[in-house]
């Protein structure tokens, strides 16, 4: 899986590529508009992460070119601009997702994976990890092949974990993943705790192991014990 990161802030681009590389993606970076333009005309990427504000051009133009050359490439916009018009325009010209800076790398990772899943298999696939199997189109979860009923939030939480196996997820990133950034963070952090508790209980009840590991002060990690 090849990913192109178009981002002029070198440190941020490095963090993104580091993070995604750990997940097994092959990442390339373009720091300028022209670099990005050259790369997309030379190579094929499964996913492109584009910053809209570049020193020598506009991210929108890259997306338009990309759509012309390789319509199958997934596109995620990352931008500090958070106006509705920008979001609508981005989605209108063919991007698949829009994330407002600052974002959580784990959230970006989850979205990249979900996007690639949608692109490659039309969403018609199962996601399997250890003894957990998720049927995505039906939104059904099986633990050791026993169907387990999860609430919508628990399901979203499980998917988020499954997209970030062995990765420490902060409470904030989980809260924002589940409720968006409009929510009051102090209250939603408590709610994260109760949802985690429920999810953990449901997995263990069905005979699964306790995969959710708490990391003191930071959050949680989904990992094989």
């Amino acid at each position, binding site marked *: 899986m090849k990913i192109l990161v178009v981002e002029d802030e070198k440190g941020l681009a490095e*963090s993104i590529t580091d993070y995604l590389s750990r997940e097994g993606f092959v990442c390339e970076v373009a720091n300028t508009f022209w670099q990005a333009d050259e790369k997309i005309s030379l190579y094929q990427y499964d996913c492109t992460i584009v910053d809209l504000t570049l020193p020598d051009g506009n991210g929108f133009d890259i997306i338009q070119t990309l759509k012309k050359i390789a319509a199958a490439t997934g596109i995620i916009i990352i931008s500090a601009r958070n106006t509705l018009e920008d979001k609508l325009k981005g989605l209108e010209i063919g991007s698949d997702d829009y994330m407002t800076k600052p974002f959580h790398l784990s959230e970006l990772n989850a979205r990249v994976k979900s996007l690639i899943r949608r692109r490659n298999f039309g969403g018609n696939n199962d996601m399997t990890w250890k003894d957990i199997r998720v049927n995505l189109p039906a939104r059904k979860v099986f633990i050791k092949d026993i169907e387990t009923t999860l609430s919508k939030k628990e399901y979203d939480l499980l998917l988020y974990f499954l997209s970030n196996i062995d990765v420490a997820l*902060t409470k904030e990133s989980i809260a924002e993943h589940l409720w968006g950034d409009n929510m009051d963070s102090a209250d939603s952090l408590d709610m994260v705790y109760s949802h985690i508790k429920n999810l953990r209980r449901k997995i263990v009840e069905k005979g699964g192991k306790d995969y959710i590991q708490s990391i003191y002060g930071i959050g949680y990690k989904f990992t094989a014990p």
Partner: protein
Amino acid sequence: MKLLEKASRIYLMASLLIYAAVGFAFYWIINFMIYDEVESRLMVEKQDFEAYVRSNDTWSNNSYFVENKIEVVPVYGKFKNEVAFTDTLISNRYDETADPFRQLTFYTLIGGSPYRVAIRKSMIESYKLIEAISVAMIAFLGLLLVSTFLFHRVLSGKLWKPFYDSLARIKDFDWTKNEPLETVRSEITEFNELGDVMEKMASKMQHDYRSLREFTENASHEIQTPLALINARVEQFIQSGDLGENHTYWIEEIYHAARRMSRLNQGLLLLAKIENQQFTEQEELDLSELALNKLKDFEDILQHKEIRVVVRSTGSFRKLMSPALADILLTNLINNAIRHNYPGGELRLESGADYVQVSNTGHALKSDPERLFERFKKESTGAESLGLGLAIVKQICENCDLRISYQYHEPIHAIRITE
């Protein structure tokens, strides 16, 4: 009242007054001339009469004419020797109508005994003349009045047309767009000057709007990018594992501060954007329904905090406003009602044809309710609170011509949005 109508009315009233005065003066002058003429003829007849009496020393009172009549009546006792003109009515022998006469009364001696003599002259013809002249005059003045009035209207309409055209363009002018304002040029210097001034102001407005918009966009980008970097680096650091308890504490602090700053920055930028009226799209929205839907988004947190929800709707509050702003407005109101609630409390959403009210149970305010909507006015407790939520609500209300009011009846705090 329109300028043209006002001018026309004043003009009409002034003309009517002037014309009435002119008409009256004219009538009076003609009346005076006619009386003067009749009276001098009567004086001549008086001389004729006296000459006749002097030469004959007698008067045969037998002749009667409609036009002229001399009446001689003997007077007994003392009499004042005076000469007087009077108006009188004498009945017409044939028509049984009373005809106006001017009468000259004087006293004289005929054959040594005193007599009062009244010489009369018919005014029928004169009155007819006055009538004819008056009617003609009223007709002409009326015609003049109407024609000048119409002329004035048409002329003013033409003269003021560029003004009204420019006014229409100014009304249509939208400073968020890039099109410059163009007023209508005309031969009238004042209108052109006004147009120049308006055009200058408009382009200044557009310029300010653009630069502020650019500023907010750039500031947003320049601040959010480093924040994103801090976040990303901290997240990477977290992944590195084998962190001591001290380290996780510090990292959490840094991470938390960065998130908080980012939210603060977004809040302030949002305020600047609302103030700068950058939310231009408008739709007719049903705020009651939107609030109800919004409440559903908060179901989790309401459940978690064990807050009871009471919804009472007596109508839908429809309002033409930006959907993005409406969303922010309701989110902040509900968020506020949840944040300052206590576990087991209540949240009420009431709406009617012209209001939406969100009320919540909560502890009494420690500070002045007047300052509730000010920026960075934090009421409580959580350091999490940025103190921008209600300031944003207020700013949105100001921008969308909504009124906001706060009331507290222990233990219910109510914030009401009305038209």
